[in-house]
């Protein structure tokens, strides 16, 4: 059976769309457990901010970030079948991305010197929220919803529950955990 140009172009487009959807769903499956891990890191970090003296905050967060990045690398490697076509250079992308975010956050604190601890606590939530939202709008729509949720929860905590902000942020990590489950189950 001979087919027309229009039919051939439509078939090629269907192939591309299907493969892109498959890649997105594979990414969700890979990203879900990583998000769950980071929700635990966040809960631990914010509980530390709520319960421990300020001089412990930075070293604890730095240690937690190292654990989070290492854990994400392990999960990414474990979740990617060797031949399943995940993008190459995953390790470097994860390392580079995480390092960039950490350097950016530390630089902002260094330059802006926030005197209000609540502002310093809210900043990571807003940063992660906007990064997820951008990723979502460009590549994987579910991340836009998760980013929006994190952004919104951070603002609600900052404006309405400021005296209890670290505990609010630790509790909001539960939403991040559930978001990870939501991604992973696809």
């Amino acid at each position, binding site marked *: 059976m001979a087919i027309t140009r229009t039919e051939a172009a439509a078939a*090629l487009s269907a192939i591309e769309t299907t493969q892109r959807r498959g890649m997105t769903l594979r990414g969700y499956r890979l990203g879900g457990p990583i998000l769950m891990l980071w929700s635990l890191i966040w809960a631990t970090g914010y509980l530390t901010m709520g319960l421990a003296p300020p001089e412990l905050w930075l070293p604890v967060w730095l240690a937690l970030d190292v654990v989070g990045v290492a854990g994400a690398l392990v999960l990414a490697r474990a979740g990617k079948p060797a031949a399943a*076509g995940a993008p190459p250079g995953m390790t470097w992308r994860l390392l580079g991305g995480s390092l960039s975010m950490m350097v950016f956050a530390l630089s902002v604190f260094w330059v802006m010197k926030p005197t209000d601890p609540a502002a310093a606590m809210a900043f990571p939530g807003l940063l992660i929220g906007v990064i997820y939202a951008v990723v979502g709008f460009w590549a994987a729509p579910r991340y836009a919803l998760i980013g929006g949720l994190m952004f919104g929860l951070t603002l609600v905590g900052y404006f309405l529950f400021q005296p209890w902000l670290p505990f609010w942020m630790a509790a909001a990590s539960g939403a991040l955990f559930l978001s990870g489950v939501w991604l992973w189950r696809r």
Partner: protein
Amino acid sequence: MATSDDVIHQPLRLKIMAALSAEKGQPLDFPRLKAITQATDGNLGSHLTTLEKAGYVAIEKDFVGKRPRTQAKLTPEGRKAFRAHVEYLRAVVEAADEEA
């Protein structure tokens, strides 16, 4: 120029072949294949059977704990046929563009 593969060219079977081809030899389980192709259970099952009969897809059934699991993957013949069909589609588009 190669010819069209009528088994593959049916829209849902094309999507199934495209999804499995992207897995590079790894099997896909039924729910994920359903999500990727956006097919219904019945449709997906019947078209998978057609592809299996053509020798393009291998279906494996096993149990994860007590839950039955169905997985599908491309056979070497299926991979070759899909590649040839995609080349045919590209050739049709290119030939029409050159004529225009």
